[in-house]
């Protein structure tokens, strides 16, 4: 995505065309991948050396190899697999529910002033309130089960989504609206052809924030909710058992999961809103 070509401007004849093709090194596409691999290898090697030197107490700083072996055995013995699957499943369902509620409601808040006036005190209160504060109440109401874990994910993810969608609709460029009207777009067309496409990047960044907040929600639900399931539970148990390699293994898997989700969303964003590319290098 490093070069911008101006469409099919010139056809054929080389020389004085407006668009020229660019030749890049065969290695160019792999360069960042190679750097990343080298970078991570160096990171884990340094980690291993520090752990071997036992500069830090091995009780909370295990060898990198021990962590990888914990991951391997965890999966082989079926310790990690079901918990990971439980977390991912819960998280995706929660995100889906949050999106189904948050996105339409946020768009409505942006478009209809009275809906905004009615809902905004609750939305802002819930957006600002740290989610952990809700845990005791939710346990009281919903118990220690899965419902409670799911609820906290939904509550964490839904409000950033709503706020972003609302902001998106509210910041639609007024001259685009005027252009829409002058060229014959009536209310429904104005929504579908001008307002919604304009809002799409905001919706996506709302989902991104929803993912970040939802992951926090998922973890605190599993850590503090005592449901006995999920990556949070694994983390909690490893801590109780002074099983440092397992703790690090869980953290690494969580990091991989988050990065995967964020990168996935960025990929979707580039496909869904390619016109935003001008803001990127």
């Amino acid at each position: 995505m490093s070069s911008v070509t101006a469409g099919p401007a010139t056809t054929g004849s080389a020389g004085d065309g407006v668009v020229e093709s660019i030749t890049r090194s065969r290695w160019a596409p792999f360069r960042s991948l190679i750097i990343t691999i080298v970078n991570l290898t160096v990171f884990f090697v340094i980690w291993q050396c520090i752990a071997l030197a036992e500069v830090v107490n091995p009780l909370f700083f295990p060898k990198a190899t021990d962590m990888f072996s914990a991951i391997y055995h965890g999966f082989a013995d079926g310790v990690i697999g079901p918990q990971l699957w439980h977390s991912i499943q819960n998280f995706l369902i929660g995100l889906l529910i949050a999106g189904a509620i948050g996105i339409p409601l946020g768009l409505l808040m942006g478009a209809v002033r009275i809906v905004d006036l009615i809902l905004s005190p609750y939305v802002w209160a819930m957006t600002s309130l740290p989610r952990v504060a809700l845990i005791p109440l939710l346990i009281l109401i919903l118990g220690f089960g899965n419902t409670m874990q799911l609820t906290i994910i939904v509550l964490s993810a839904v409000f950033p989504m709503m706020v972003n969608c609302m902001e998106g609709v509210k910041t639609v460029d007024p001259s685009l609206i005027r252009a829409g009207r002058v060229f014959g777009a009536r209310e429904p067309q104005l929504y579908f052809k001008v307002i919604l496409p304009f809002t799409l990047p905001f919706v996506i960044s709302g989902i991104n924030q929803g993912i970040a907040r939802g992951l926090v929600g998922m973890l605190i639900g599993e850590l503090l909710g005592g449901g006995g399931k999920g990556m949070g539970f694994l983390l909690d148990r490893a801590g109780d058992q002074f099983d440092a390699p397992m703790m690090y293994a869980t953290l690494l898997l969580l990091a991989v999961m988050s990065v995967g989700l964020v990168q996935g969303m960025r990929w979707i964003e580039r496909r869904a809103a390619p016109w935003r590319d001008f803001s990127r290098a």
Partner: protein
Amino acid sequence: MAQAVHPAPMRGGADGTAGPNASSQPLIEIRGVSAGYENKRQKTRLIALRDVTLDVYPGEFLAIVGPSGCGKTTLVNMIAGFMKPLEGTITIDGRPVEGPGADRAMVFQDYAVLPWRTVYNNVKFALENRRPRPPKAELHRRIVEALALVGLTGFERSYPYELSGGMRQRVGIARALVSEPAILLMDEPFGAVDAMTREAMQAEFEKIIAQTGQTVFFITHSIDEALTLGDRVIVVSSRPGRVKEIVDVDLPRSRFDEGVRRSARFGELRDHIWGLLQAEALGARAGGEDA
């Protein structure tokens, strides 16, 4: 008078507007129009325009100059149908303006092209919303023609972010031309492009309008631009805007021909309008009016 330079008006103009002999019946009649904006916080109303009366004849290129904040944009917004006058009436072909309509298209200072649409689809936007939607082949032919007219052939599939400011505005102009409206409303269309591009686009636009013969209502803050393009120049006073003077531009076309803009007459007209506006600018400062 420098009118009747233009050939016949657009085909399909609203109920068969008069022929090339255009100076009989006004197309747009602005009668005693005042306009203002309410400031809810201060519970005041800012008067942008006061008692403006103006006739625009079919096929005429009308340039409006005035100091910034004189209500030029307000006037064009009312003709477009975005806002209503506080007092007075605006009629087009005898019918009062109720809202935007197919007889008018607009070119915006900030281009206002849809960033998520390609050049082709941006132009298509002006045709696809109208109720009797033209058949597909006709739609395509007209878009291709409009793009050719503004020199964008070959850029159909580009997105606006891939284009320079001048080219984006060409998209805006093609979009306005494609539906072949009787009236083109232009709100400082070349105000945001660089000086060299502006010059080139003015020359091209003069040619295009000579071909299409549309009625143009052109807002600008540049006296040179007004004199280069306009058949008549309306000088608007500073806020609240009033028509201060109407200047007939008795210069031959094309104004881009050798010598026209270096002629003594061009200089005289420019000095005259400059004098009017300078008095306005000083008056506004003395009056201490601000937004």
